[in-house]
């Protein structure tokens, strides 16, 4: 029966092409707007690392000025990054299952041969645990080992695009790459990996793509690496060299720990508090103890990765779809009532009210699906434009299967909203009324 109803609906739509186009356009517009905002919200609000997000914790320690908080609007908040000294001190803990300090650098890569010129590559300077902690997939090789970590060995992990650029996509593991002033050995090549949002470093842009290179954090002092991300100070730097900078209160690193159990979490909080008290005894960290351990979702919320505007736009998008649907009620009602004589005939031939209602609802859903298809296509175009506007061509906002499903669902709901009342009205038509009007 459904196939028959769809056939009738299709025939009805073809009978009035202009009206049908208007109906489809109305739904398409609503679905396009709603799907775009739902997708935007979905990307920003999604759990970037399902299954682990509640056991990965971002570490914050308040090393800010004793006279003023780091954030005047949120005085209870400690700085959103750590100083080098804190990261080094905290990495000494054996409580976390895994841990990684990190920052973003911008390093120069010198390809072999003369054919290609040196290029700058965003680099994540971090610990080996980074890869396992964040479930980073490898195409070739793997993370550097603990020996390389301890020895501060010049090893590097490349992302897939850089491996392709340097080695033509062949397995680059074991090859040598010159980065800045020294040769690095490639130990791993990542498979395509685009966590959305880039949760491990939202302070420097939640919408950015992951870095192209990954090198050990231990190389930082030797290579005098500087951050390509945000850096904050509460007092002027008065040191003379890079070693002084590393000892300063400047905050520019992020740190994550993996604490799978509540006991580990409690122990690590105690460890943090003890660390701060120890530093206070040494004359540092003069503010009251104000540490934070926030899991992934909590950290994204604090950092407003999903801006309040996105939530508002989501609601506006859905309301827009509702308005579009409501506007179509009148058109559908007119269209259906215009077909009342045919309905009268069908009723005379045995169609029940339910059958007539169902048939017209199916027609509305066919309109909804057609409008949905156009709307989803429009939404894909709009999302592409948004990517260009806000993320420098990164495919951050994209219609994945979930969003395609959401688009279809929105289209069906829109069809339902638009069609319920007209379908109900036409099924209430007395069959005898129109039989003489054919």
């Amino acid at each position, binding site marked *: *029966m459904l196939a*028959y109803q769809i056939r009738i609906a299709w025939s009805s739509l073809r009978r009035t092409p202009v009206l049908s186009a208007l109906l489809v356009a109305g739904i398409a517009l609503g679905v396009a707007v709603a799907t775009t905002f739902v997708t935007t919200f979905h990307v920003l609000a999604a759990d970037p690392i399902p299954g682990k997000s509640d056991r990965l914790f971002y570490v914050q320690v308040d090393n800010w000025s004793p006279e003023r908080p780091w954030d005047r609007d949120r005085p209870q908040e400690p700085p959103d990054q750590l100083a080098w000294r804190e990261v080094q001190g905290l990495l000494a803990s054996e409580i976390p299952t895994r841990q990684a300090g990190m920052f973003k650098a911008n390093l120069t890569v010198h390809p072999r041969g003369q054919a290609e010129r040196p290029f700058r590559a965003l680099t994540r300077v971090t610990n080996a645990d980074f890869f396992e902690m964040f479930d980073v997939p490898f195409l070739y090789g793997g993370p550097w080992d603990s020996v390389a970590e301890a020895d501060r060995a010049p090893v590097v992990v490349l992302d897939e695009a850089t491996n392709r650029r340097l080695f033509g996509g062949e397995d680059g593991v074991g090859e040598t790459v010159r980065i800045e002033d020294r040769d690095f050995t490639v130990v791993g090549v990542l498979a395509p990996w685009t966590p959305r949002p880039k949760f491990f470093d939202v302070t420097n842009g939640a919408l950015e793509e992951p870095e192209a290179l990954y090198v050990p954090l231990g190389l930082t002092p030797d290579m005098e690496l500087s951050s390509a991300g945000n850096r904050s100070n509460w007092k002027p730097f008065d040191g003379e060299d890079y070693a002084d900078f590393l000892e300063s209160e400047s905050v520019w690193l992020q740190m994550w720990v993996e604490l799978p159990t509540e006991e580990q979490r409690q122990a690590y909080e105690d460890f943090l508090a003890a660390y701060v008290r120890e530093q206070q005894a040494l004359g540092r960290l003069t503010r009251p103890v104000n540490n934070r351990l926030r899991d992934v979702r909590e950290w994204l919320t604090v950092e407003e990765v999903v801006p309040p505007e996105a939530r508002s736009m989501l609601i506006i998008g859905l309301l827009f779809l509702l308005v579009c649907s409501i506007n179509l009620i009148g058109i559908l009602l007119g269209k259906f009532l215009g077909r009342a004589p045919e309905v009268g005939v069908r009723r*005379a*031939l045995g169609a029940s009210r*339910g059958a007539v209602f169902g048939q017209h609802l199916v027609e509305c859903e066919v309109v909804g699906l057609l409008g949905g298809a156009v709307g989803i296509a429009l939404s894909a175009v709009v999302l592409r434009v948004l990517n260009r506007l806000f993320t420098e061509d990164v495919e951050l906002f994209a219609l994945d299967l979930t969003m395609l499903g959401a688009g279809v669902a929105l289209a069906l709901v829109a069809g339902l909203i638009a069609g319920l009342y007209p379908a109900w009205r036409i099924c209430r038509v007395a069959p005898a009324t129109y039989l003489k009007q054919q």
Partner: protein
Amino acid sequence: MIRMERVSKVYRTEHVETHALSSFTVAVDPGEFVTVMGPSGSGKTTFLNVAGLLDVFDGGSYRLDGEDVAKLSDRAMSRIRNEKIGFIFQSFNLIPDLDVFDNVDVPLRYRGLGGRERKSLIEEAVATVGLSSRLRHHPSQLSGGQQQRVAVARAIVGRPRLILADEPTGNLDSAMATDILGLLEEINAAGTTVVMVTHDPELAARAPRQIHMLDGRLMDFSRDVPAPLFDPARPRLDPALSL
């Protein structure tokens, strides 16, 4: 087949009440061929609509094929229309988007029959009306007489026990009208009860039994005993129209 007793039907607007059927009593036995005549507004179509469960009535009782229809649900009435009644209308009432096959298919679709069975029934019905070569023609490609033949095929495809025809020859020339009436007579001869509204006395005279209506009442008949016939307040029908 049809048992109506003192059935009334009133159409109400804001200022006017129209008694389309007033204490209307009639009985039609299975296998009968009955024609209904009367001037415009006499209630013929209302009678057919009520008889065909296309309209509800306000008073009295109505048993169709032994079943009291007064308290049936819409679904039950639809099922009866689908399974027991075939309708033929003056203006054919074919669905213009559908070809002959699909038009005849409509009642079978609501009966939920399988494709093979429907095809067989459709081809048989269309053959009965002599339009097998026009199965994929649309109504606009057919003459008036052919369209009414399709309507007849649609009415009989479900093998109903009762055919209700509302002026089925009203839009046809006399040759085509005779043709359609011949079809109805064949259908009746096969055992199907036929009730036909017509304005044409010649066609009406071909039926074994005629009913005359005026102001929603039975005015003249060959067997039923309607009260209005003996109501002195009511005008008597012109004897020339009586049988």
